[in-house]
């Protein structure tokens, strides 16, 4: 199989299926170490797939900044909990984009033919850095030009949100609807940290952090882990009648010069989506995508990313949200898991509410979270680093 993606010949040895997923509780503070959390997630994914750790040929780990756990070489530290002992093992990291990047790395392990069974594990333990993980976040800023200004990470979101609202004339009320929707969706997720019935007024009246961002516009810091098992077709057929296939993957990064670009549109997400859609032969995402799990660390981010993913025209995502199109029973359900806003934001471990949720949705195993419409194809995406990375995966239950 040879495909051309972004002008590059893409040699695929074999298709890639997902046959199992696992997720832990997401909470502000958990007693378990990162290793123990990783072990829980892996154990659950193996149970769902009907596999044993000895069946795993290669292991991919995803985890965000070392500063949260306070352990350098965090990938190596987490190895045993991830089931990677004496196996080909590698940790991947693109900040907040890691939750969707780790499964992309898992994909190429299998698609290349290097492995037939690859385990992907993601972990984050943000509570170790106390009293607040924001203190660790400040080290992502440029040390020479930005840090002397005493920045808080929330600033960049506030600056981007304001620019997005300004360019498309969007009201905060319309953005708050995303928080209302996702926190309500999370009521049906057993891992959820901040599931709640809230109103637009609750969001608009919540504590100001860095305006326009208020407390309820933001997802919480969390501890948690998740896991996925990705396999070759001949293995998938032995394990299940209902594998979910990885149809396309894409990623792109822009520079750390984030003040040099117009923040109203995430071009790097659009580039990543273009790559993934091309591989998946998706030409009209709004029509062909049945369910979406874009990255929602902030409520406006879901809208911003829907536009980057081509699920809405520029400035149209708030309108689709207001009209109920993105509700769980809508025509294009978005973040049916409850997302980061409702379930929690253990950075890399959000794979469990992004890629794993899409897998469960497309295999019709999401229970109370299952979207109303029939689904065959879905897209999920994460975003991160210093306003610069987009990671995209397209999944499908048809072959």
């Amino acid at each position, binding site marked *: 199989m040879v495909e051309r993606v972004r002008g590059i010949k893409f040699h695929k040895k074999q298709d890639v299926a997902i046959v199992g997923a696992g997720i832990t509780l997401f909470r502000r503070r958990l007693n378990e170490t990162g290793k123990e959390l990783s072990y829980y997630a892996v154990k659950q994914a193996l149970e769902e797939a009907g596999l044993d750790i000895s069946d795993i040929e290669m292991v991919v780990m995803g985890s965000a900044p070392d500063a949260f756990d306070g352990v350098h070489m965090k990938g190596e530290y987490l190895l045993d909990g991830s089931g990677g002992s004496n196996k080909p093992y590698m940790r991947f990291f693109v900040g907040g984009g890691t939750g969707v990047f780790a499964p992309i790395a898992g994909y190429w392990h299998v698609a290349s033919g290097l492995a037939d069974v690859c385990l992907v594990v993601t972990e984050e333990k943000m509570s170790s850095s106390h009293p607040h993980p924001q203190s660790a976040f*400040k080290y992502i800023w440029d040390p020479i030009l930005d840090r002397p200004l005493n920045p*808080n990470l929330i600033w960049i979101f506030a*600056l981007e949100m304001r620019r997005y609202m300004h360019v498309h004339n969007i009201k905060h009320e319309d953005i708050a609807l995303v928080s209302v929707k996702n926190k309500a969706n999370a009521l049906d997720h*057993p891992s959820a940290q901040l599931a709640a019935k809230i109103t637009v007024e609750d969001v608009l009246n919540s504590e100001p952090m860095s305006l326009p961002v208020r407390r309820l516009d933001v997802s919480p810091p969390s*501890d948690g882990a998740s896991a996925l098992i990705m396999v070759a077709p001949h293995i998938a057929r032995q394990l299940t009648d209902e594998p979910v296939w990885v149809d396309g993957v894409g990623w792109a990064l822009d520079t750390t010069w984030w003040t040099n670009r117009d923040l109203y549109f995430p071009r790097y997400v659009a580039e990543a989506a273009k790559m993934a859609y091309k591989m998946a032969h998706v030409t009209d995402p709004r029509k062909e995508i049945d369910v979406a799990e874009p990255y929602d660390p902030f409520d406006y981010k879901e809208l911003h990313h829907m536009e980057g993913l081509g699920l809405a025209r520029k400035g149209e995502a708030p309108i689709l949200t207001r009209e109920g199109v993105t509700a769980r029973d809508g025509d294009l359900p978005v973040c049916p898991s409850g997302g980061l806003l409702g379930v929690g934001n253990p950075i890399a471990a959000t794979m469990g509410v992004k890629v794993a949720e899409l897998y469960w949705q497309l295999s019709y195993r999401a229970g109370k979270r299952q979207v109303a419409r029939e689904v065959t194809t879905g897209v999920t995406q994460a975003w991160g680093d210093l306003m610069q990375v987009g990671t995209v995966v397209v999944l499908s239950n048809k072959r």
Partner: protein
Amino acid sequence: MAVGKKDISAPPYVEGRELELEDFEEKKVTYVEDYPDIRYQFTAGQAISKFLNGLKEGKILATKCNKCRRVMVPPRTFCELCFKPADEWVEVRDTGTVETFSISYIDPDAKPLDEPEIVAVISIDGASPKMGILHKLGEIEPDRVYIGMKVKAVWKPESEREGMITDIKYWKPLEVE
């Protein structure tokens, strides 16, 4: 694929034991405290050293790429798009436009600030469009700030400048001059 709802709800269970902040305060949880103290000296490099020394003299310096014709602030020694050395240094003005802004109520550790501060991305006059820097606004009430507002740098007195981005104290509205 058997399409349709099934009597399966994944994940079937979730593991993990939640802790409260009080569990730490009351020592109900076993933990080890650590205070890493790591010190760094970040060299500013070829381009940003010249930029910072320019600030000391009250000048904002940029580099220009003659291929894509961008005037780049903060300056760099190479154009990352054309991937070739920048061609020349140019001085840009100490005025600009607010591209976006935020009223921040929190410090770097997420602790509340006594007085909110206004942070902004300011595109610099004389540089290419949308070539902005992160900085703060002053001499204006938060509710009077708007996107598109023209602003001017307020410099520290020359004797107090030290070759830092903070040699510009903040940016103030241009029209109040």
